[in-house]
């Protein structure tokens, strides 16, 4: 599967709607070989395509807890309870999120150890040039699938967040390479010599707040633009950037003059209001001229 190929969101949503009954690899359960989804020359997408959504769903229901003992040993994973979404069209590029992330996880402020990366070209024009790289807890986590030791795993005790147990990481970096996005959402901690990734602040030990899916998330809390948002609805996957999310839709942001459109443009409603104001001024001028 090339990086540019994506699983259609509809398919994913439908397929995993019964994920509660899926058998998964838990935190302390080493993954048996071979259980990796993408190793045997068949991609998740191809599997879905060839077996069909209905077939997969039926299989789920029919197999109960042992669901997804599928051809080529493709393993399905339970959906994460939620993920952190970033609206790069709202982001001010202050990188508070990055520093907060490394601060609460590592106890040190660092760009390199941040599990969210804001990649910004200061010579770009809005809305281009700003990207975010933060794990959005894929339905089908290729990083988990790529891990030969179970270090990169689904944490069933913490809302199925995809995370790395550094103690089990052997440093092969396969999970980093497997991440399908333009900048890997899994990072290499060169001091620990282990991979790491967004764990929804489950391990945010340098903070008085409790993290995890039910708790608080450092990046979300510090963001002065409120451009990061924890969502129980996982994002629609869309291209290599992953997804678009629009956190500018409330009246406060409109009042602050933010472009409200999904792509960072003014909406027709906003442009209409501007045009109406201009037309009113022109009409007043015409009236005055008479």
């Amino acid at each position, binding site marked *: 599967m090339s990086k540019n190929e994506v699983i259609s969101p509809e398919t994913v949503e439908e397929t995993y709607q019964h994920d509660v009954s899926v058998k998964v690899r838990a935190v302390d359960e080493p993954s048996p070989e071979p259980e990796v989804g993408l190793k045997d020359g068949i991609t998740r997408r191809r599997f879905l395509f060839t077996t069909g959504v209905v077939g997969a769903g039926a299989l789920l229901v029919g197999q109960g807890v042992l669901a997804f003992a599928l051809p080529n040993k493709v393993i399905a994973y339970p959906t994460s309870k939620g993920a952190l979404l970033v609206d790069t069209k709202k982001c001010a590029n202050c990188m508070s999120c990055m520093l907060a992330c490394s601060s609460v996880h590592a106890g040190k402020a660092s760009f390199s150890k941040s599990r969210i990366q804001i990649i910004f070209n200061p*010579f770009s024009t809005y809305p281009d040039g700003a990207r975010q790289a933060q794990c959005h807890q894929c339905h089908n986590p290729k990083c988990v699938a790529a891990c030969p030791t179970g270090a990169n795993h689904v944490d069933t005790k913490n809302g199925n967040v995809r995370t790395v147990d550094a103690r089990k990481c052997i440093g092969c970096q396969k999970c980093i390479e497997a991440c399908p996005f333009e900048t890997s959402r899994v990072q290499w901690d060169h001091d620990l010599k282990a991979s790491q990734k967004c764990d929804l602040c489950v391990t945010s030990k340098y903070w008085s707040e409790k993290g995890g899916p039910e708790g608080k998330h450092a990046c979300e809390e510090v963001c002065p633009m409120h451009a990061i948002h924890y969502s129980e609805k996982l994002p629609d996957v869309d291209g290599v950037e992953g997804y678009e999310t629009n956190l500018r839709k409330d009246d406060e942001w409109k009042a602050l003059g933010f472009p409200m459109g999904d792509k960072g443009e003014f909406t027709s409603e906003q442009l209409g209001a501007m045009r109406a104001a201009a037309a009113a001024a022109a009409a007043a001028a015409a009236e005055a001229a008479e």
Partner: protein
Amino acid sequence: MADGYMGKILRVDLTKNEVSIIDTEKYKKWGGGNGIGTALFWDECEDVTVDGLDPRNVVTIMTSPLSGTIAPAASGRTEVQGNAPQAYPVNWFTRSNFGGRFSGMLKFAGWDGIVIKGKAKEPCWLDIRNDKVTIQSAKGIWGLDTFETQEEIWRRLRETSGYSTNGWYTLEKGRDTGNTTFDPAVLTIGPIGETLSPAACLIHEAANGSGQGGFGAVFGSKNLKAVSVIGTGEVDVANMTDLMDTRLWMQKSTMMGNYNTPQTQEMLLAAPGTAANSLFKMSSAPGNGAGPVFGVPQDVPSVPYGCLACVRCCRRRFSNSKTNGSTCVDFAFFGGGDAEAHGAAGQDTFDASEMMQRAGINDYVLLVYLPYLRALAKLGVLGPGKQIDTDLPIEEEWGESNLLRILIDKMEKQEDIGKYLHMSLVDFAKAIGRYEEDSASGLFNVQYWGYPQHYDARTEVEWGYGTLMGDRDINEHDFNDYIYWTPSLSIVSGLEPPYTAEEYANVVSKVIKPYDGDPLVVDYSDEGIYSEHMAKLVAWHRHYTRYYKQSMQFCDWCYSDIFNPYNEGHIGLTGEVEPRIINAITNKNESFLDGMELGRKIWNFDRAIWCLQGRTCEMEKFAPYTYTQPAAVGGEATVPYIMPTFEGGKWDFRMVSGRMLDDAKVEDWKQKYYKLEGWTTDGVPTRETLEELDLNFVADALEKEGRL
């Protein structure tokens, strides 16, 4: 013990073509930024009286323990110091400061700061990759504009980096050498700096400029094109849990901690003109908010833009220009003419701003030049064949970005009028034979030490006095918003200001320790401005900013927080927020007053250096028009300066424009201030004062030079 410091400062001797390490430990007692910078300048500069462009001048580029951390609005500033070619009549030792991400990146590379000495034989740039530092040839970079320079350095670094994995790359061979997704943070000069114009600034990214002082020319004089730094390390602090908690606590007192509360909803959405809608400084929204301000056409999308770890994000990113982060004078220097030429400021203003940033010119210099040149043309003395003979199309192209293109070209080539514009402001006015006349009338509104008039010394005296007692336009907005802008704008618009003068004075009186308990410090009446109360306000301001803003590098656009709409009694966070942040990082357990005292110490240290450079009481004069022309821009327009006054036993907001300063009373005020600071009648810190501050060695130096 983790304390926010990286432990080493980089010394670069360009004459010797070598780099070395200074242990930060010796300098920690100065805090960071300006404090350490002054101490380093003292130690590293063989003669503190050298001119700005002398190879012996030393430039310090300093971070603070807070840099690179999540300290709110206190992480992304970098302090630059050295002797200033822009200053008049002496190249005073000065400071400048810029935002962005340079400070954080320098610390992630393992450095608390950089000291640059000497002069390279050939144009060069400094390449810092973690602890690996090299002085590189600037061949192929010298001559590029500031944007091109940064992009070229990024390209060269990527070419020579280690290996990349899925969007990440390492700085050296080997996967455990630290990896990153970032390009280096670069501080560079443009073509104007290469030709040593005092109008040249340092530029980082698009619009982070270290403008005042002329450090672009200082870099140029050292044959130094740029400093590039990339780091993959981290900043370790004493108590991260406290720091995180403090940040979130502090955010609650900003608008962004309240954006969805009923109070802010009212501010944002309720009827304009109500007190609730008239936000105060700490509460203000990110970016420009709605509407076509600064010439952003209303239908051009733009969003806020912040320096590292900011909570306010006061700047802006645009869809119609690459001049990201520009704000205020970055646009204002051109927007007025653009509006006159086209009905409203627009694309020409953006294009002009980008040209200015690319060339690396201090926008404040252009803010003086453009209207002044046009006035001279109108006066009939500037133009082809005129007394000031130039083909600069100042009138024909007024408001067109092409005018700036031509002007910059002339400055770069130093031809036609460009050979004069290339000088410092005062030297320019002298070279064209207009200085005496126009600084007397105020047409040439360069009010103090060769720097453009910013807030007027005749009305907002704490700004003018602070500048006069120092070395440059202070550019510190601690009081300005509340004593001038909000009341003036409200009353000019026919509205009641959102607070009374008495309420503001009482809050100031509670917060400004150790000078608290005196509301009259903000009495801007004709008597109040010459009082001992005003001396206390100026002293508080000098000491506060020297430590908290310029040394620990709390951003001016967020601190001090004296008056805050979200807190009970409108009492701001200053006094509590600064030590909480500092102590979480350094574990020094210092009090607010400890910081104020260190600020006083650094201020006296700087003052002593100016005295060694020749400062006397007699030199401390504003430009002549300040004493002879009523307060107004250019000496003639009526400016609605509405300020708090206490007269007849009553507080009020009163129009004080039209005021000119009384020379004798200013002299009298200076003596009150000198006395309060413990300085001689000639303005030199006494031995007693210096020894009380543990600055005996400074007293010795002053005595040796006959100043004590």
